């Protein structure tokens, strides 16, 4: 059996809950975030941003700003290399011919202080030709809508959509018309969601320093510093190796820090001035000019028999992802029906352009929106047919051997055990009071693997340094230390895991796709195994016996073969201490394209109360059940599950981008972009199921993203039951709910 395949085993470190090694630094302020880096001679940079939703840039006059004492350089898109495969990302960083949205950067100033730089912004004269704009998906898709970018119409887009439609996809199998013909009841509805921001607490921040030899260093908060390096080096026409990127601690990302916004601009300014340049976004800039997730408008049609069997499912998904094409329709269409075992299913996606910032990934990108629509219709079918919503889901649940709605046949998956656990959970049978409702929903997400490289050194005292290349956004350093400790048979405290810069390891894929604990964990285990093989070899040399006669157990090499003779076990401390004399430093390392990430399901139960006079919703009780494969550090698995639920609660109830008729964003701050505060939330209960992933030695599945998929429908279904009206648009703000209550008459 290959080492990376799962084998059942007992664990000593994995599954415990030690304190994370970065925790004390974070609570005492010692940890360095993006804005905490400084260098002598450093300049401060700020961006000039378009006040228009859509405008041609006829000219930019920087002369007066450049004449201001303290101003050292100004850059525009003309300073970048052009015509490469990351052009749209670059154009989002600095507008090329047109300002595409309110807040789009058109120039940036580096000066001796931020105050001088801000003063200089007012001296830059931009001659704009204001163009018609469109910020909402419903207008964008209609013929006659203002066209955001000419020539971007997707080849396969249905004819009735405007030229803002850039892409079309379709998945599914079977004959849905035949399926609908077999249904006793068909429900068809349209659902809308607003774009929502990832809401990370730390704004984007970086420090760039380009040397006179063209070699550069960049410190920034990011989910993937290798990705930052690759994107920036293309835009600046540099060798990848010439740019070393160091990831800071990160104050949240949730997908929004998987690309670049200010980093290439700071590098350009540093290149131009020969001095280090620091650039930090304000909160207003984060909302206006980083990437929220797509807004959506989805038609769903599902047929069901009286006894709860789904006969056919159809979804037509429309996503709006800002001013450049995006591919989020793909996972949106793939995930819509992924929880179901269906004979006939079809899901389509169409992407539309609008004058908004380019969407960025947000936790299971694309899945929450389409799942919300499907799970709402399933709930309504159950309600009309008088079926228990969990029983009906169990009747249709995907399982091992199901041909999924997106194509492949499932291996071991955990949906049925999750639904059974949800049904048996005391929450599901707890009584409800007046004006209260309960909602449930399934959710599905793929998990990824990807390029991964780690290095693990046995130090002279037997302690261990593990070097990985993925920014730690959810406790992954702790999880890696635990897996290394488990494999080596040493205490967790003996392993220190650090996130190295791009010059210290081979390429590591971004921290996204719920990949890190799976993929970096896999590489860590293999690196530790390589170190163990080497340590056994060293012990064998000392004992003068064949290496095959030595095995590793509980932190020590042991002579185990028939003719090995009697030898005291040689501990990791002894082997580390003698390593110089037995052949030099001992390092295990592993580089891989990690494959075999198992898919993941979640089931959420939500109870809430709606004030019938104000439309105010109080979430009373919330339970998340999710398949984690194997929970390495259960605290951080629970944290991911709770965090996903909380972001989903915000999305469902209050979060939205509000644009005025002028195309400008009206709520670019946490005051009016309402993420939940702690007192808005009940304790989020968690139930971790462990259905091992066959593709990981410890059975790990990704857990980071699935938790945000079910909440939208779980909460919408609960509100619908509480008020007796089916809700079909998010956010379900108090006024929308009150309006719905009045509409039932």
């Amino acid at each position, binding site marked *: 059996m290959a080492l990376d395949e799962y084998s059942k085993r007992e664990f000593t470190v994995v599954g415990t809950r030690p304190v994370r090694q970065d925790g004390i630094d974070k609570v005492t302020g010692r940890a360095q975030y993006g804005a905490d880096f400084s260098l002598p001679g450093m300049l401060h940079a700020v961006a000039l941003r378009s006040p228009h939703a859509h405008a041609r840039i006829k000219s930019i006059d920087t002369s007066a700003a450049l004449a201001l004492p303290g101003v050292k350089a100004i850059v525009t898109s003309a300073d970048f290399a052009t015509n490469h495969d990351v052009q749209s990302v670059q154009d989002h960083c600095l507008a090329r011919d047109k300002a595409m949205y309110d807040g789009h950067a058109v120039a940036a100033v580096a000066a001796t202080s931020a105050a001088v730089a801000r003063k200089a912004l007012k001296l830059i004269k931009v001659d704009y030709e204001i163009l018609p704009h469109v910020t909402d998906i419903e207008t964008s898709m209609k013929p006659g809508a203002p066209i955001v970018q000419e020539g971007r119409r997707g080849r*396969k887009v249905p004819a009735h959509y405007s030229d803002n439609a850039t892409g*079309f*996809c*379709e*998945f*599914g*199998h079977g004959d849905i018309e035949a399926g609908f013909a077999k249904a006793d009841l068909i429900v068809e509805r349209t659902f809308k969601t607003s774009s929502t921001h*990832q809401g990370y607490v730390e704004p984007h921040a970086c420090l760039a320093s380009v040397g006179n030899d063209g070699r550069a260093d960049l410190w920034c908060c990011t989910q993937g510093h290798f990705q930052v390096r690759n994107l920036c080096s293309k835009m600046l026409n540099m060798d990848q190796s010439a740019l070393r990127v160091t990831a800071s601690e990160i104050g949240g990302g*949730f*997908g*929004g820090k*998987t690309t670049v916004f200010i980093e290439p601009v700071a590098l350009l300014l540093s290149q131009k001035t020969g001095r280090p340049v620091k650039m930090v976004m304000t909160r207003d800039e984060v909302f206006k000019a980083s990437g929220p997730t797509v807004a959506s408008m989805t038609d769903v049609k599902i047929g069901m028999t009286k006894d709860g069997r789904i006969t056919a499912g159809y979804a037509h998904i429309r996503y709006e992802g800002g001013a450049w094409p995006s*591919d989020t329709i*793909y*996972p949106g269409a*793939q995930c819509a029906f992924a929880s179901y075992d269906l004979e006939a299913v*079809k899901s*389509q996606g169409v992407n539309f352009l609008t004058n908004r910032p380019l969407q960025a*990934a*947000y*936790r*299971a*990108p694309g899945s929450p929106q389409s799942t919300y629509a499907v799970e709402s219709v399933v709930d309504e079918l159950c309600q009309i047919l008088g079926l228990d919503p969990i029983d009906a889901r169990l009747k249709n649940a995907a399982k091992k051997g199901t041909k999924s709605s*997106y*194509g*492949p*046949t*499932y*291996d071991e998956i955990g949906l049925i055990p999750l639904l059974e656990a949800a049904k048996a959970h005391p929450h599901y049978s707890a009584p409800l009071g007046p004006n209260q409702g309960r909602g449930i929903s399934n959710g599905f*997400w*793929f*998990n*990824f*693997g*990807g390029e991964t490289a780690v290095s693990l050194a046995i130090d002279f005292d037997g302690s261990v340094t593990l070097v990985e290349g993925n920014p730690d956004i959810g406790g992954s350093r702790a999880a890696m230390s635990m897996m290394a400790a488990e494999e080596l048979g040493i205490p967790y405290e003996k392993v220190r895991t650090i996130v190295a810069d791009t010059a210290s390891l081979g390429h590591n894929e971004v921290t*996204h*796709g*719920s*990949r890190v604990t799976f993929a970096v964990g896999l590489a860590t285990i293999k690196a530790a195994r390589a170190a163990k093989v080497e340590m056994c070899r060293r012990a064998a040399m000392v004992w003068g016996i064949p290496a095959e006669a030595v095995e590793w157990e509980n932190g020590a090499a042991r002579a185990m073969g028939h003719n090995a003779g009697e030898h005291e076990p040689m501990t990791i401390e002894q082997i580390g201490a003698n390593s110089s004399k037995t052949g030099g430093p001992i390092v295990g390392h592993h580089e891989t*394209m990690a*494959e*075999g*990430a198992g898919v993941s399901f979640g089931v959420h139960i939500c109870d809430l109360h709606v004030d019938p006079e104000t439309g105010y919703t109080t979430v009373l009780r919330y339970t998340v059940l999710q398949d984690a494969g194997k929970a390495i550090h259960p605290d951080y698995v629970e944290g991911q599950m709770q965090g996903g639920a909380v972001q989903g609660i915000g999305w469902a109830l209050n979060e939205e981008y509000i644009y005025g008729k002028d195309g400008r964003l009206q709520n670019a701050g946490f005051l009016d972009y309402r993420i939940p505060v702690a007192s808005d939330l009940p304790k989020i209960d968690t139930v971790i199921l462990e259905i091992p992933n066959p*593709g990981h030695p410890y059975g790990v599945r990704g857990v*980071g*993203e699935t938790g945000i998929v079910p909440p939208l429908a779980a909460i919408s279904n609960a509100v619908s039951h509480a008020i007796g009206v089916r809700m079909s648009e998010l956010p379900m703000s108090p006024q929308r709910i009150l309006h719905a209550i009045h509409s039932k008459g």
Partner: protein
Amino acid sequence: MVTVTIWGSLRDATDGAAEVEVNASTFIEVLNALKANYPGLTAQIDRGVSMSIDGLIYKDSWFTPVRPDSEVVLMPLMVGG
């Protein structure tokens, strides 16, 4: 021969066929054969695709073996959050 499932919106490149047969024994051979037999798929494949082989999703990995009885499903390249 290996049977490859093509997602819906690519089927105009395969004369509407949801499944096509190609002669291949690895990930990369599947892609090369698809491009050779169905040139309409080339643009999408060059933009990037994933492939599910017997239920496991591979992003790249050219030399992953594909058996004649393997379930092979072409999938879009994916990003996560």
